[in-house]
């Protein structure tokens, strides 16, 4: 059975979908982990749609020229069947699916998507630390971003980040980070030499993006930003972030700062995205 694609109007509809799926086998698999602020914007903009295919609900977000695909399924076999049906109906669409998890289950879900015609695009690992390095002096060029810098930061994301792997933030998210003083920038005149964005609760800091502009490399701007980040988060218990697994230099650098890789991985798979677009 397949329903029509329907625009999601409220988060409750996703919970109802989970319940519908759980009614089959009392369990469910998903790669959709609600983030109220971000997903609230998707819903407000009518950019998140839901479709039921057999024993799976797919959530489809219209991103920049492609669709982000999420599933809520009753099992691996059911996901395979549903993906085949979806693929045949919407065969021209470009899809990106992030699979987050660990161990055999993650590998099994990954195999399902690969067998359905998805390709491995990249993989990330989550690193974390509960011990932080000694803090250095504050650099006067590093400060919290100002709202006037939001468009410049947005343009840097569009120019230098990989939209398939790195889940580029919406303008609304950038503004929110600036308002909450969770975006640090290294400014040099009217230019931004680098930035660092994080989420923070009282126990956890989540490093979201850490960027140094190519024109400002070898000036230790990355170190200055991360130092300020540690200063801002010296009271938290845990710091965590995602890093691309093939980025050995970055991983080496993170290890230097005391981070270690967790078991949690994010496998990014694409469908219908040609090699020259990667």
């Amino acid at each position, binding site marked *: 059975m397949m329903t029509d694609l329907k625009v999601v109007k409220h988060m409750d509809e996703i919970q109802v979908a*989970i319940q519908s799926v759980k009614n089959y086998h009392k369990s469910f698999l998903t790669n959709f982990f609600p983030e109220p602020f971000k997903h609230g914007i998707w819903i407000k903009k009518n950019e998140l749609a839901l479709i039921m295919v057999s024993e799976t609900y797919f959530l489809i977000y219209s991103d920049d020229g492609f669709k982000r695909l999420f599933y809520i399924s009753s099992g691996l076999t059911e996901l395979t069947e549903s993906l085949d049906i979806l693929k045949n109906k919407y065969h021209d669409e470009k899809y990106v699916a992030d699979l987050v998890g660990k161990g055999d289950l993650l590998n099994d879900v990954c195999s399902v998507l690969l067998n359905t015609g998805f390709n491995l695009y990249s993989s990330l690992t989550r690193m974390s630390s509960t011990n932080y390095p000694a803090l250095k002096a504050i650099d006067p060029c590093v400060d919290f971003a100002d709202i006037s810098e939001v468009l410049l930061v947005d343009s840097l994301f569009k120019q230098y980040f990989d939209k398939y792997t790195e889940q580029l933030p919406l303008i609304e998210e950038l503004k929110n980070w600036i308002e909450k003083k969770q975006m640090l920038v290294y400014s040099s005149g009217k230019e931004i030499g680098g930035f660092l964005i994080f989420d923070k609760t009282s126990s*956890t800091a989540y490093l979201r993006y850490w960027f140094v502009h190519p024109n400002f490399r070898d000036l230790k701007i990355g170190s200055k930003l991360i130092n300020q980040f540690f200063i801002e988060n010296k009271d938290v218990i845990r710091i965590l972030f995602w890093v691309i697994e093939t980025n050995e230099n970055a991983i080496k650098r993170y290890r230097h700062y005391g981070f270690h890789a967790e078991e949690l991985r994010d496998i990014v798979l694409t469908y219908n995205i040609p090699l020259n677009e990667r």
Partner: protein
Amino acid sequence: MKDKITTILKEIRPEFDFTENVNFIDEGMLDSFDVVTLVTTLDKEYHISIDGLDIIPDNFSSIDSIRALLKKNGVHNES
């Protein structure tokens, strides 16, 4: 039941002390991925199926709220 819940939480996020009287969600001790993992684990451990509509942060914000959710699903003993 309280000890078992604490053990399950500790397996998901070993670095935190879940015996503290704080809001696990607001404090960032559990994120949305952890909540889904917790639902799956509770379903298996207690042979229940937590309702999709109950998968909201408030129901996983403390030991007491998790215990109330389990009771709603028929888990009453002190296992």
